């Protein structure tokens, strides 16, 4: 396969992988790249059920490929189709309802706001992190999985249940990654984890966690800090196995929709920053997925190491403000809003994408993408317009 085979357009002078590395390093690539967080939309567009999105990898690959052919291309494969729902507990430690299990086949999965971890678990996490620092994240996530799924037993039997599924999941992703690499795409990351503070927020439930923040802040700080080595271990393991040296860190509950900027700065950011720094020490690039409104947290994000991470925003954040405040520190991805993709016209999407490219894409350090996941009921023509905008407006040497 020649270098030319791996470019997506005849005007491209970089491969997708080179483009990805350039934007993360805040260099100016040949053009703005596009990324596709495309899971349930691929299912609906490709004519398969939402259940098949997670339980039939072959059907899902075909659906995503149909999207790629009809509406693409895009530069980065953004994988989220965790192969087994039980493993989803390692990504988002929450109970959920799943299509084909406790929802109709054609509904998307939905998370439930319930307490999965108890207040005593902060101390337990600190204790296991001291005993077995490298395995703390896996032990914690296994405990969470056991509390969510009856079939994941407490103790070693739980690992016996999960391990083959985890390996099968990795094999499925490895196969997908190879397919997309052959088409000239870069793989955005090999694993999704939840930031330490946010992990507890999700697993405790929002209201109990807010009370914990008030009454147990020291326990939270100690537990989140203690977990870092365990996070790094699993990230190194999976990044090595799948040969993709990038990890997505989801930060679902640290926006100022959920906590104050002061709480973010004092309780959430310290462990997040430490995790980012430790991953970078192991040559793993962190990609932060920041849901909600981050306008008031942008100054704090400036403390992230320059030119070595990416931050994705999902719509509520003023991405143009973000460019001004942190654009010289981190690469920014986003944020074509869901309502625009679902209800807007092609012209409106085109105008918004053009503005993103001109303002957020100025001087590099930007990736075009939807705000969070492309919604299942997005208009296909709008999705196509979003992806095509980088070829229409995104070349730096016009």
């Amino acid at each position: 396969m020649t270098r030319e085979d791996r470019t997506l357009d005849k005007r491209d002078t970089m491969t997708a992988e080179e483009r990805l590395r350039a934007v993360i390093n805040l260099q100016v690539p040949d053009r703005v790249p596009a990324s596709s967080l495309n899971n349930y939309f691929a299912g609906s567009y490709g004519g398969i059920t939402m259940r098949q999105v997670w339980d039939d990898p072959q059907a899902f690959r075909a659906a995503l490929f149909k999207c790629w052919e009809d509406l693409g291309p895009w530069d980065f494969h953004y994988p989220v189709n965790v192969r087994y729902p039980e493993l989803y507990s390692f990504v988002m430690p929450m109970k959920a309802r799943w299509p084909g299990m406790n929802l109709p086949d054609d509904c998307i999965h939905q998370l439930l706001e319930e307490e999965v971890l108890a207040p005593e678990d902060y101390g337990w996490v600190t204790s296991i992190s001291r005993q077995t620092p490298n395995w703390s994240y896996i032990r914690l996530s296994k405990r969470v999985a056991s509390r969510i799924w009856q079939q994941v037993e407490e103790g070693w039997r739980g690992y016996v249940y999960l391990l083959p599924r985890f390996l099968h999941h990795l094999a499925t992703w490895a196969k997908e990654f190879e397919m997309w690499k052959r088409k000239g795409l870069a793989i955005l990351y090999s694993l999704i984890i939840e930031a330490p503070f946010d992990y507890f927020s999700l697993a405790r439930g929002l209201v109990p966690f807010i009370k914990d923040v008030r009454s147990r802040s020291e326990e939270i700080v100690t537990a989140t800090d203690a977990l870092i080595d365990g996070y790094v271990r699993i990230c190194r393991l999976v990044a090595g196995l799948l040969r993709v040296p990038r990890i997505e860190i989801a930060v679902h509950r640290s926006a100022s929709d959920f906590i104050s900027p002061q709480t973010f700065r004092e309780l959430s950011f310290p462990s997040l920053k430490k995790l980012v720094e430790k991953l970078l020490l192991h040559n793993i690039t962190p990609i932060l997925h920041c849901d909600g409104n981050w306008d008031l947290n942008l100054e704090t994000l400036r403390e992230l190491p320059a030119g070595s991470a990416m931050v994705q925003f999902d719509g509520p954040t003023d991405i143009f403000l973000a460019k001004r405040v942190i654009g010289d520190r981190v690469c920014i991805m986003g944020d074509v809003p869901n309502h625009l993709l679902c209800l807007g016209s092609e012209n409106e999407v085109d105008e918004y994408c053009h503005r993103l490219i001109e303002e957020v894409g100025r001087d590099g350090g930007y990736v075009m993408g939807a705000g969070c996941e492309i919604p299942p009921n997005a208009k296909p023509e709008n999705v196509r317009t979003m992806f095509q905008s980088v070829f229409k407006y995104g070349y730096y040497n016009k």
Partner: protein
Amino acid sequence: MSESIASLIAEMEEERTLAQVKEALDAGRDPLSIVEELREGMAVVGKRFEEKEYFLPDLILSAEIFKQAIALIEPHLQAVDTPSRGSIVIGTVQGDIHDIGKNIVATMLRCSGYDVHDLGVDVTPQSFVEKVKETGSGLLALSGLLTLAFDSMKETVQALEKAGLRDRVKVIIGGGPVNETVVGYSGADAYGKDPAEALKLAGIYLG
């Protein structure tokens, strides 16, 4: 001199608020005036939230204190009719089971003196219509986190129209992806981007 109940709850002084409420009740103060003062404090919380001095945790914690204070006052209210600011039906629309935002809005509306009929999650358009009919509510609050909720919101508004109720019922919507465009699409009257805006809209439509 002791601080007012309103300022204590506005500062989220849980123990001191409850102590002051008990003291006031023991002194034979009119329970309705204590409720009114608690609501004044909650209004201060709402204002500080709008001004970004307070954040969601402050809304939640102050509402928790309010609920505890009301539990202390309730036995003293039995013989008295608590005045209501109006009746509201609320729920997460069909196909969506997310409830955290809806629950917070429902709590804040209750704290502000509205009768709130919470239908829960995954509520069909017909169930909303029936509850509006049954309660005579003048405001319907629809919540949804998924973009798939846009269609359910629209169908609910259409069901209200079909039942001949739309003229006397205002519809407000809220949830992560909801904005002005979704108001136009669904046929609702307005959207609240956070609990404080929902409260403000309730004030506009119901007083």
